[in-house]
């Protein structure tokens, strides 16, 4: 995996004064992967990203982007990177187009045609000549993606990319990132506090807490497969007796009555049986669904219940 790694962090440490903000981070991100950073506020997500793009110095350790050190070969390393760090802050007094021209001038080989192409990609054709101060947050976010994509980077780093996007925008961004990784082999690193987003977007997720890497796992491992017990909500007008019966069923770990119906912790394969039982006993069933909070639950479990920003 390491020869293919687009980004490698080796024992990356950041100290400010005596405080260790980032503590020996080591991981690789292979080509074509969407990699997520997850962690509570102050865990060091943004600091790590800032070190990756050279805005902050690395106290100890090394970050390689396509084999080039961000420390000693900054210009070569950074030319592979497109990024948004926190909010995409643009020159508000310039038009969106002028902003793109500004960034295009800083990288060799970005043509006017490429700028138009990127503008089309983020669907800003109608407003690109307006001043950025007239843009909505979502439009600024899209302009941010446009400036990051201008020079066709092989690594896209997006810090909280879904900030300010409406659900349709988030979905669009997600599909777009999928397209980039699948079709163009671009590697994407995102950080987000929207866990459900990470779950849908990422291939692998790294969990950071107090500057330490707690775990790096594939999303499936987090969420759990078919055989693992999960919480399901069955919307039904069930009485206590039915709940007790369900709890006693084979393969059911737990069942309790909640205001909407019954919450059952069980494997997916047990659900038809439970439903059949309820219907047979004349209980009105309105629906059944998995309570998809598993990532959040897992996260809280791993970080010891610290809040998620």
């Amino acid at each position, binding site marked *: 995996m390491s020869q293919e790694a687009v980004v490698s962090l080796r024992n990356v440490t950041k100290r400010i004064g005596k405080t260790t903000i980032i503590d020996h981070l080591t991981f690789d991100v292979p080509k074509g992967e969407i990699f997520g950073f997850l962690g509570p506020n102050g865990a060091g997500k943004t600091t790590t990203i800032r070190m990756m793009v*050279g805005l902050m110095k690395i106290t100890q350790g090394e970050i390689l982007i396509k084999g080039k050190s961000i420390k000693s070969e900054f210009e070569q390393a950074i030319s592979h990177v497109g990024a948004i760090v926190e909010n995409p802050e643009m020159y508000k007094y310039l038009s969106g187009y002028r902003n793109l021209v500004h960034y295009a*001038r800083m990288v060799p080989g970005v043509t006017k045609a490429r700028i138009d192409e990127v503008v089309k990609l983020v669907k800003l054709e109608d407003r690109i000549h307006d001043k950025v101060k007239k843009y909505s947050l979502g439009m600024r976010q899209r302009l941010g993606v446009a400036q990051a994509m201008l020079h066709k980077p092989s690594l896209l780093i997006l810090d909280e990319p879904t900030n300010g996007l409406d659900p349709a925008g988030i979905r669009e961004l997600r599909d777009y990132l999928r397209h980039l990784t699948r079709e163009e082999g671009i590697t994407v690193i995102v950080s987000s506090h929207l866990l459900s987003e990470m779950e849908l977007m990422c291939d692998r997720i790294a969990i950071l807490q107090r500057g330490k890497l707690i775990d790096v796992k594939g999303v499936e491992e987090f969420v759990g497969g078919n055989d693992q017990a999960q919480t399901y909500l069955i919307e039904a007008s069930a009485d206590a007796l039915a709940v007790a019966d369900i709890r006693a069923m084979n393969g059911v770990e737990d069942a309790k009555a909640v205001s909407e119906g019954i919450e059952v912790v069980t494997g997916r394969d047990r659900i038809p049986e439970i439903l059949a039982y309820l219907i047979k006993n004349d209980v009105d069933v309105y629906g059944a669904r998995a309570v998809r909070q598993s990532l959040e639950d897992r996260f809280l479990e791993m970080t010891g219940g610290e809040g998620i920003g």
Partner: protein
Amino acid sequence: MVNLIANENMKVYRRYRTWVMIGGMIAIVIIASIFDWYYDRKDLTETTWQTEVTADVAHYEKMLADPNMGEDSKDWARDELAISKYRLAHDIAPEDGTMWSGINGAADLIVLITLFTVIIAGDSLAGEFSTGTIKLLLIRPANRLKILIAKYASMIMFGLLLLIILFLISLLVNGILYQFDSTGLPYLTVDSHGIVKEHNMFGHLWQTYLLNGVSTIMFVTLAFMISSAFRSSAMAIGFSIFLLFAGVLMLEIFHPYEWSKYLLFANIDLSQYLDGQPYQEGMTLGFSIAVLAGYYIVFNLVAWLAFTKRDVAA
């Protein structure tokens, strides 16, 4: 590098406030020139310049004859006397009451250029930090030194542009006001042998403008340094403008101390060597240039270190 400077220029000239400043400066030059011209005409006496210069000659001769007069003053009076006599002999009018005095007077407005350039320079770096645009600026394949130099170069270009605009507008306005009379008037100086020389008036004025421009450059560099070190536009602009006006006051206060000749403000006005007395005894043009160069290097070094070595956490 050319692209980076083009970027910085874009950020200066595609901004409304820049044009407000340029427009404001043009308006002030026009108004000030009209005022000057108006009062100049009111003062106009019935006498010709020849009678006035003859009176001057008598005055200088009296000064030279006065035993209580200091050696410096006598040197000055001797030079002025030579020029006055030359004027009478060759029929060359003084600049007073011609367009040239108006243009020369407009050189005083260079302090406005300093003011405007300091505002732009103070905001140039710090503004990028306070708006957060610095992050997207620095994650490009251009190292921080190049970006710093590009910003600095665009500031100096802005100052120079204002200087050229000031000169052209004052030339035009004063030319119109004085109906372009005495355009061929030469500028007179006395060399060390007491011989009067004729110079081109244009050249002399540019010398004045450029010498005044030195102070603009120093203040811009100062503002740039503060902008880089503190990453605050308000601080950079405020502090530089404060020094711009407090400098003269500081010179008054510290004048009794000999070390005050090493102060930036004691050396910033190089035109003190063109006409008049230097701030402290024994100061020469070479000394001032050396002191200014020292300050210049320190300012730029601090700006560079503060900008390239520190983390961006904005």
